């Protein structure tokens, strides 16, 4: 592609409408109603699209089938088959006779293609330990699992009588889940399921009332761990007048009262809350700071958040800043030479000397 001359131009600053519409009265309500109606349409479409969608197990099957189709250089190398097993495997595949004691005598796992196992139909069981433990290898439709009794299907869902399930402990079957420990058998029903502690949650009370699968005690969370503004669903003590437009998602962000005044902040990296990346770059601005923009200093830069006086020092009041206002808080430059002045045209990065507090040039230009 053609290369441009390396001229860094000031980005255009078109006058844009206020970021937020009028937050009071009819216009706000109309807009919010419009948004809600649109959301209702989207949700109805999504609900309809779920008709005919297969269960999660189908996707899980696809994932399992896909993994292993590509060689992965980062995976540990599988053990090689012993030569004797390879020969044995070849013979077996030709003769196609399969008895369970033969299956278990080898490191590798011969795959018998024709139904001839000792007292089960043949299958490809990847788990050698199933043989060694003495348990018979049961063959399901397309997989094997280690079972006490042979040829029973795997419990993919909880059936009324667990005796028909291969790996489902009878006590796990519905409706009595009081001694449940095999999660695959039990439906996540908070009232009757015995589940492990809330992994991933600080306190059981943090579980949502919908009872996520890993929750043991499902109660409403305290608001200290949920968003005070915006999506207060599930919170027990969130104020009802939280305004979703605040966009606050951190418990430390702001109370709803402060959120309502956030839109008055002029844009400061899009921050209407403590800036998410402030820990990386230093604090951006709080809404309070946004009010301190000195308009005379920040001429032509309406988005200037906190105009550092170093932006305009050295200029008299009648002239506009020849340098665009610093909308980014400048760090102190401990290593800068206080003798080098900001007004030097070679200076592209201003800062304040931590020692003398004079404006300095971070790049240390010499004039």
């Amino acid at each position: 592609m053609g290369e441009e001359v390396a001229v860094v131009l000031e980005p255009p600053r078109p006058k844009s409408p206020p970021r937020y519409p009028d937050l009071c009265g009819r216009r706000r309500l109309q807009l919010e109603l419009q948004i809600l109606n649109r959301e209702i349409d989207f949700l109805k479409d999504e609900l309809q699209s779920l008709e005919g969608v297969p269960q999660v197990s189908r996707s899980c099957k696809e994932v399992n089938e896909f993994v292993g189709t590509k060689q992965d250089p980062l995976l540990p190398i599988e053990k090689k088959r012993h030569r004797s097993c390879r020969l044995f495997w070849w013979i077996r595949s030709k003769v196609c006779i399969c008895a369970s004691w033969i299956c278990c005598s080898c490191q590798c796992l011969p795959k018998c293609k024709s139904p001839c196992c000792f007292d089960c139909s043949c299958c490809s069981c990847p788990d050698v330990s199933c043989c060694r433990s003495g348990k018979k290898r049961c063959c399901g439709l397309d997989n094997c699992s280690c079972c006490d009794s042979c040829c029973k299907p795997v419990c993919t869902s909880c059936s009324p009588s667990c005796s028909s399930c291969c790996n489902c402990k009878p006590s796990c079957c519905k409706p009595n889940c009081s001694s449940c420990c095999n999660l695959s058998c039990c439906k996540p029903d908070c009232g009757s399921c015995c589940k492990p502690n809330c992994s991933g949650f600080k306190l059981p009370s943090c579980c949502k009332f919908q009872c996520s699968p890993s929750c043991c005690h499902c109660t409403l969370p305290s608001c200290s761990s949920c968003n005070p503004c915006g999506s207060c669903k599930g919170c027990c003590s969130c104020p009802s007048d939280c305004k979703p437009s605040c966009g606050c998602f951190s418990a430390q962000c702001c109370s709803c009262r402060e959120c309502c005044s956030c839109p008055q902040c002029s844009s400061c990296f899009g921050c209407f809350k403590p800036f998410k990346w402030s820990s990386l770059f230093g604090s951006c601005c709080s809404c309070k700071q946004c009010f301190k923009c000195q308009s005379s200093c920040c001429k032509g830069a309406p988005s200037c958040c906190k105009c550092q006086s170093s932006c305009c020092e050295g200029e008299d009041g009648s002239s506009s800043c020849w340098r665009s206002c610093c909308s980014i808080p400048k760090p102190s430059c401990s290593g800068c030479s206080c003798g080098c002045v900001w007004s030097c045209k070679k200076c592209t990065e201003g800062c304040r000397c931590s020692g003398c507090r004079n404006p300095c040039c971070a790049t240390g230009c010499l004039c």
Partner: protein
Amino acid sequence: MASVADLKEKHAAATASVNSLRERLRQRREMLLDTDVARYSKVQGRAPVSFNPTDLVCCRTLQGHSGKVYSLDWTPEKNWIVSASQDGRLIVWNALTSQKTHAIKLHCPWVMTCAFAPNGQSVACGGLDSACSIFNLNSQADRDGNMPVSRILTGHKGYVSSCQYVPDQETRLITSSGDQTCVLWDVTTGQRISIFGGEFPSGHTADVQSVSINSSNTNMFVSGSCDATVRLWDIRIASRAVRTYHGHEGDVNSVKFFPDGHRFGTGSEDGTCRLFDMRTGHQLQVYSREPDRNDNELPAVTSIAFSISGRLLFAGYSNGDCYVWDTLLAEVVLNLGNLQNSHDGRISCLGMSSDGSALCTGSWDKNLKVRTFKKRLFPFTTS
């Protein structure tokens, strides 16, 4: 014209409808949730992955940045890496030799993301300047030794958090931003082709943190946001997201497509990674670590990557851990943060080489490290 009282009544009714529909959706999805990937895989008798602590060896440490590393990207073909740092520089590395081929001083030092063009000839970066800068690596440096910018993509009203070139298209780039939108750019003209989300909300309702383009179908990409959702977009239809994925309980910091192109992984501030099915919207698996003994909050997931087969999920956390998850069994098989020669600080970014043979991690300790499986060191055996 409807009175304010009428509007309030309609608003309340509409809010109730939205809540009711969401609840019905949630219940309908729960009915379809008959298993997850880990349970299914265990029933299938999947053998676990077993690593020795010395298996994933650090074969290269790339030193040169003087500030925290925030972002990295591999070239699609050569073994080059571009990294962006708090020191205000992009560095292009030859990962095989550890040599720096380019060190680009940025006009705006507050960089948050970088990306390599598919042909490896250009790099893009963006950050707090709300713009995305493009550098042609074949350009001559100016008198001061600085590489000139070949294009600046302006238009975002908030910081640029993530950028990615559309695979096999040198001229198309997608960015995500703190202004709650994603944008598809024409790099040659500098124009915005499409804006995803925006003023009339059909998109994210908070800062967008990450994007991932589907390499199997480059018309589709996903974005993760501080609104705790992930959205799927079709670049041909910018007016609304194709689908929204709920589940996370905090900012979604990182999204990455699964190698099969039909699933994607996410990493979040809530400390979990999740695997979603793109087409059905199902949440297939949650990868959640155990809380520590002191019951502190779970560390946030900062970045994720999949191995080329999809069997491994690498996740960097805010406390310096880097877990290697067995995707199928949802078990942690290794913690790169505990190994010898691991980073001294938080791992902020991860990237897998295009052939899947090496993982590069970038950290707040100012370094990048390249790891390979020790028995397969080629081509990294040459040093």
